[in-house]
């Protein structure tokens, strides 16, 4: 064994190289199938090179997760790359096809707005009562249509619960990335009562959207319009809406995550995150704390990006409902007292098995969302380097 791998082995609880390799084999096959859409290997040499790079990237990170036993460290690299790639690909595509990031009235009445998962909480009640979707997209046609996004959300929620927020939601990846820029937080104390804010936002946007038959969070609050698309400014009202979402983006997605080392939009505003928290009740995967090993050092509570651990929850040996199963607390615990657990199974045993059962589907979600997006972004960056423009 080389010096490096020997050092790695000493530093972390992990699997042997051989065992790690065998555990990665299924993922090598599954990601190959997903990325090639069932075996269609790209013929264009450039696309083939990008395919190979992204394939190695995902499986390399998965191998390191298995080998080192660390989850969040490598998840965060993939997740942040996905988010950055999403911004590059999405904006470039918009400018190429539409000429601008601004969404016009024409785009809206033609149903050309890609459906975003953040809208889901707002459309449920109107859909049940009026059989209509209050969003200017398409039910089945075009990119990111309503039915497709809904199916992905249902599948991801069944398989991962709120794990969706740390393994699939490309918006969360932006905050995750910004929250890792500083080694130590500047703002250390955020009162825990603020973590109930997303539930209040959820209640308000569900109510107002139902009454207005219009997605009010998208119109007034969603910070991620700043990096995707936004309504063209044609009136004073739209100007005010633009000022609000840009401020929220700068504040909650960029500045506060840097200052607090937390995912502040996910933890303090996101209504979908609040809704996803309830899916944790149904989902079988959870994070548990072994009270016998725990020394109440609170490192996990300080590290948790979504305010999902506090003294009370640690004393109970559980996370709060909002846990996104990112694995950061598991990684930082110096006593190995925190672990992935399958509900119903005996507490305190089978940690590795539970973690493996969780990270396989979680990585499938990340790879499916991420592979095409990262390939697209790499292609755009290559275009920029070779032609001086990301737009073809």
């Amino acid at each position, binding site marked *: 064994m080389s010096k490096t791998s020997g050092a790695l082995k000493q530093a972390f609880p992990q699997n042997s190289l051989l065992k790690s390799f065998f555990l990665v084999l299924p993922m090598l096959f599954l990601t190959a199938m997903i990325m090639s859409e069932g075996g269609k290997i790209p013929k264009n040499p450039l696309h083939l090179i990008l395919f190979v790079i992204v394939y190695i990237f995902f499986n390399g990170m998965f191998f390191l997760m298995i080998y080192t036993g660390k989850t969040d460290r490598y998840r965060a690299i993939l997740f942040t790359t996905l988010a950055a790639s999403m911004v590059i690909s999405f904006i470039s595509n918009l400018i190429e096809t539409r000429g601008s990031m601004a969404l016009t*009235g024409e785009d809206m009445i033609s149903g050309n707005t890609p459906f975003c998962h953040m809208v889901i909480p707002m459309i449920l009640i109107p*859909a049940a009562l*009026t059989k209509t979707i209050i969003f200017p997209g398409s039910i089945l046609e075009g990119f990111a249509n309503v*039915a497709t996004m809904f199916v992905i959300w249902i599948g991801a929620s069944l398989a991962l619960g709120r794990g969706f927020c740390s393994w699939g939601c490309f918006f969360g990846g932006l905050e995750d990335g910004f929250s890792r820029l500083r080694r130590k937080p500047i703002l250390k104390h955020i009162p825990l009562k603020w973590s109930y804010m997303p539930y209040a936002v959820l209640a308000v946007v569900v109510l107002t959207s139902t009454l207005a038959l219009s997605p009010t969070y998208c119109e007034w609050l969603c910070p991620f319009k700043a990096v995707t698309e936004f309504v063209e400014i044609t009136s004073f009202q739209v100007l005010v809406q633009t000022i609000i979402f840009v401020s929220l983006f700068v504040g909650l997605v960029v500045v506060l995550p840097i200052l607090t080392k937390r995912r502040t939009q996910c933890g303090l505003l996101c209504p979908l995150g609040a809704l996803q928290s309830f899916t944790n009740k149904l989902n079988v995967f959870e994070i548990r704390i072994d009270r016998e090993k725990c020394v109440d050092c609170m490192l996990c509570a300080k590290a948790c990006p979504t305010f999902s651990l506090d003294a009370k929850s640690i004393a109970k040996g559980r996370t709060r409902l909002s846990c996104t199963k990112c694995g950061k607390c598991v990684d930082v615990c110096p006593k190995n007292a925190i672990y992935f657990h399958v509900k119903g199974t005996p507490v305190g045993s089978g940690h590795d098995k539970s973690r493996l*059962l969780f990270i396989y*589907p979680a990585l499938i979600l990340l790879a499916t969302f991420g592979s095409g997006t990262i390939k697209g972004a790499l292609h755009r960056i290559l275009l920029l380097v070779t032609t001086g423009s990301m737009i073809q």
Partner: protein
Amino acid sequence: MNRLKSILGHTWAVLALPIMLATFMGLDYWAKSLAKITDVKISPWFSGGEIIRTLIRENYMTKLHRPVFDGLFGERKEGFVQVNWVSLDENLPPVINEEIDIDGDGTNDFHIQFNTLTNRAYLTDYSDRIIGIEAVYNLGKERAVRVRLRNSSEILRKKKG
């Protein structure tokens, strides 16, 4: 009981991977099935509502949508009607003049003149249901206009009142 819980927990945990794979591999099928089962449509406030009449002109077609007043329960006091003009050959005529009878009662409710070169519309109303032009849209070979309306049942209620 604990054993049963454990078996169920493990079963679901093992199924998480097939669920995730099935979600993506059968995405088109699931999406079409979901759309069919739920039979949901895009809200008429965004789509413009169903087309109720199509009129073929010399080199273009006029599509009249149903008036949209849809509320959560019942109808709203105000809404709109959308009219689309679709070119049947290369271009739409520079100016389109159209008399619109919203409800098909034989009485025109408004006249609209649409300048397809400047994308401006001029409205002449013949009924107190008409409020004004809400928006005009340039959809390439197609143009559309939305005219804001008062709900006729609301007008009747006011007259009675």
